[in-house]
């Protein structure tokens, strides 16, 4: 399913982002748009193939679990 999402967003990006930027010769913005799109595509492919190569924001949150648990115990919270 993620592959279809990538294809759909690729079409939308070309039509509403890359093409207008090329036409208006906004090269820096085009470079940024392509970079963000490629980054998104890489993460989407990583999810599709269940790989774990690129760093994820969720990993940072998971690493803080012990701290959250200590705070939870201190404040007597129900996790």
């Amino acid at each position, binding site marked *: 399913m993620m592959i*279809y999402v990538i294809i759909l967003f690729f079409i939308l990006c070309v039509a*509403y982002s890359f093409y*207008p930027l090329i036409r208006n010769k906004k090269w820096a913005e085009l470079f940024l748009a392509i970079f*963000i799109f490629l*980054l*998104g595509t890489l*993460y989407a492919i990583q999810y599709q193939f269940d790989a774990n190569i690129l760093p*994820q924001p969720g990993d940072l949150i*998971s690493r803080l679990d012990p701290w959250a648990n200590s*705070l939870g115990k201190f404040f007597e919270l129900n996790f």
Partner: protein
Amino acid sequence: MNQIYSRQLGILLFIFLLGSALVYVPESVITQDVWVATTLATLVGLYLLYVLLTIQEMHPDLNIMQVAELSMGRIVGKFFNLLFLWGLLMATILLLFDIVLLLQIIYPKVPSTFLTASLVLLSGYTIFKGISSGARLADLYIWLILPLLILGFAVAATLFNPMYIPPVLAKIKPIIGASIYGANWPFGEMIVIALYLPFVIDLKRNKKKLYFWFGLAALVLILRSFMVLGALYPEYLKVARFPFYEIFRLVTFQDFQRIELFFFALFISVGLGAVLIAYNALNLGIRTFFALGGGFSLVFPVGLLIIALMFNSFPSDIKYLANQANSGFLVTLPIYILYPTITLIAAKIKQKLKEKTRN
């Protein structure tokens, strides 16, 4: 026309706060005095709103990221702005994940990728129409949201049992702990409106309207916490994923069941509204960071990145609800509170230095 009125931004703020945490009760990490924790958490929101409006009054034509660079210098300002962008990204991903979790209960057979992509595309379309169109949409939304909210609370009141409410401030520590969760989500996340403030044309005259809509949202959220505690007994509140939604699942009127589906319009309106507001703020934030000016060229690339990061970061709702939902505030809350505070202090110091040099 990229201009909005204070009233419209106030409504956007109202929708954002409800969309972020109406069905969830982040403070339900305690089972008693949940509503007291929500009340305490609103103070953080009030502080943030005050800070954001003060910064905006000092530099009416700039947004908070531009003020940060102007006051702290290019390099330090960029560093803090990067942290702010990180906070915006996390807020957008988490809001999207929350609404998709709820939608998966209503549409269990629809793939979550389809639900997520649909929400992002709908939001992206609205962003493409411009900030004024989004604000006009909020003007319309509110007439759907307010009656449904009143009706929702009236329906929830049928299950309300005052016996479940009693302890008030019996234990202070858990209340403070729970209020930290509320301070992060939804009140800390409201920092996203900082990037909308330069678009408001009557901020100086009508900033009270922002406080009014914030106050109304805070009141609704406090009432929600109160109602949830009274309608679901404390032990059930502890295990309920979506406490306010659960109330509607429990209510039956004679032969009518699945009352919660009647309120689908309310949940999806505020939920989608919150995603839309955060997504647009992220788009505006990235454009400001790279000094790109106005435009919509990054909307769809950023949309794909949000979807992909959401699925990578939170692949399982069980893992998320068991661990990540509890520790997420450690990553975001310091940014939500410290970034505007440091920016305000830096802007004040810069202003004083300027006055001294002039004298």
